[in-house]
């Protein structure tokens, strides 16, 4: 059988790194004079005041601006100071994605209330075109994920690919329009570094729970 599918060139989006001035200065003092040169309209985002310099491996370096299911903008550095549970799904996904969200819930509810208060949940969609904030809102409500500190987010295609690559998540749009993807749940610590990562569905939460507690303490 021959299937014809249309493939456009991938539309690249804001990928230039927009570091905060503090981060650049921490890396290299002699860039003082240039620290705002790169803040062009391409990667404009809410500037974040950071107390500590970013570590080399912090995902808070990522400048992408996401939009969550409440239609609020969000950047990773907004989550600074809190542990983060991350997974990637898409709404049209019937099998794996609801399980992934269930796995995240199980992990989240494994924490006590004080720990939950310091933990955010980020569910990033693969489907930049289909999963609008409204679609994500319904999805979140249906799965019981519309909780305080939980964000089902969408973003630009290029940012989604950057984000997935940082977490070692592979995905690809298949000819029927869905997404083939790896099933990963990751945990970030308060500084934005990956502290735990799990592949596969419906796994015992113990290991990630341990990583999460380590990240919180």
């Amino acid at each position, binding site marked *: 059988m021959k299937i014809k599918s249309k493939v456009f060139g991938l539309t690249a989006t804001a990928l230039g790194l927009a570091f905060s001035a503090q981060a650049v200065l921490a890396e290299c003092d002699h860039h003082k004079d240039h620290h705002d040169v790169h803040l062009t309209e391409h990667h404009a985002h809410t500037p974040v005041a950071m107390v500590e310099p970013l570590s080399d*491996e912090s995902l808070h370096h990522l400048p992408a601006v996401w939009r969550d299911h409440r239609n609020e903008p969000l950047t990773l550095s907004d989550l600074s100071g809190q542990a983060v549970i991350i997974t990637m799904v898409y709404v049209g996904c019937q099998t794996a994605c609801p399980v992934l969200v269930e796995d995240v819930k199980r992990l989240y509810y494994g924490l006590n209330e004080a720990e939950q208060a310091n933990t955010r949940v980020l569910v990033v969609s693969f489907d930049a075109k289909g999963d609008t904030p409204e679609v994500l809102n319904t999805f979140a409500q249906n799965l019981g994920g519309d909780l305080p500190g939980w964000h089902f987010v969408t973003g630009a295609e290029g940012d989604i690919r950057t984000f997935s690559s940082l*977490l070692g998540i592979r995905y690809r749009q298949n000819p029927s329009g869905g997404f083939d993807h790896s099933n990963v749940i990751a945990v970030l610590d308060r500084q934005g*570094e*990956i502290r*735990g*990562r799990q592949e596969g569905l419906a796994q015992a939460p113990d*290991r990630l729970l*341990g*990583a999460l507690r380590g990240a919180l303490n």
Partner: protein
Amino acid sequence: MITVRSVARMTGGVLLAMFIAGCSQTPTNHLKDGEFMIDGKIFGLAEAEVFTEDYAGPPVVGDYVTALPFLKPLDYKGNKTHEVRIDTFSQMVEVAPGVSFNAWTYGGTVPGPTLHVREGDRVIFTMKNRSDEEVVVTDPVKGMGPFYSQLQGNLYQKNRPSTSPMPHSMDFHSGTVAADDKWRTIAPGETIRFEWVANYPGVYMYHCGTPSVLMHTAMGQYGAVVVSPKNGFPTDDKVDHEFVIVQSEYYLEKAGDTYIYNHQAAMARDPSHVTFNGHVSALIDSPLRVKEGDRVRLYVLNAGPSDTSSFHVIGAILDRVWYEGNVENEWRGMQTVLLGASNSAVMEFIVPEAGLYKLVDHEFADAERGAAGTMIATPRDR
């Protein structure tokens, strides 16, 4: 630092001494946190770690890691944990007079170094993918094990550094693990570290499992691990000499003034060269030297990648053969031993009299392409 690819399972450093179930052995096998034991064998090892390191030291490290045809005797009792490093990188190697190619190697030679351990030993293995680095193996190295002095004592492959950045992996047939974890592919510049336990005795192949596995092995990425049985072979105290022989094929074609891999020939199983220990003259220019009446033990691995070997010693009969190197698989009085790709055997014979003995692959098309070696026997004291 934990990266995306290396979330190591925390073991907590707790070691539990465990007695082997249903057996009066000494308590030599230790379970680490998260591991389990079935039939005295250890499974469920910690996840591999993949990371980057600035290591630029000797690419081969290990007290029981040797250059062919040598095997380091196990001079310790019971079990031991071996810390072994074998980095992977490119090297120009000669496989026949005037025929050199840019090989993908473990440790800079084809075949790679031989590791010797005992059944029940644990190996903590580290490998850096240095394929984008010119690694010199001809400079003197001290205190890293016997490999370098043996290699540099007989540089029959005329090893010279080269680069060809490629992803690579390491698959030890001697290990019982989840291949998608431990044998995973790493990019140039990455390092992988994992453990395996020598649960079963044998003579095992190791090789690169990265697709095309045919190309990666034909390019030179293989070698031997000898896991000696925990109670030894019945003839251990009678053996006078031990040698390791690895047979393998090359598929090369001339391109300019050098040689390159010919995938079409590899698919057609039409080798340009078939060698013992990586060079058509390896065991001819440097023959194995013994005395008449000696009991000689050969550890023979056919690394392939695709051909069989009918290993034969002209003028001798193999009076004991342990197929795959497992003491349970004993054969007697063999003229040849048929080895498929990645099959092996421990073979013993008595040297009948002084003289010259040829070791050959009795599939003569292979012998004619180089699968031959020499053993010289001098008279014994009478």
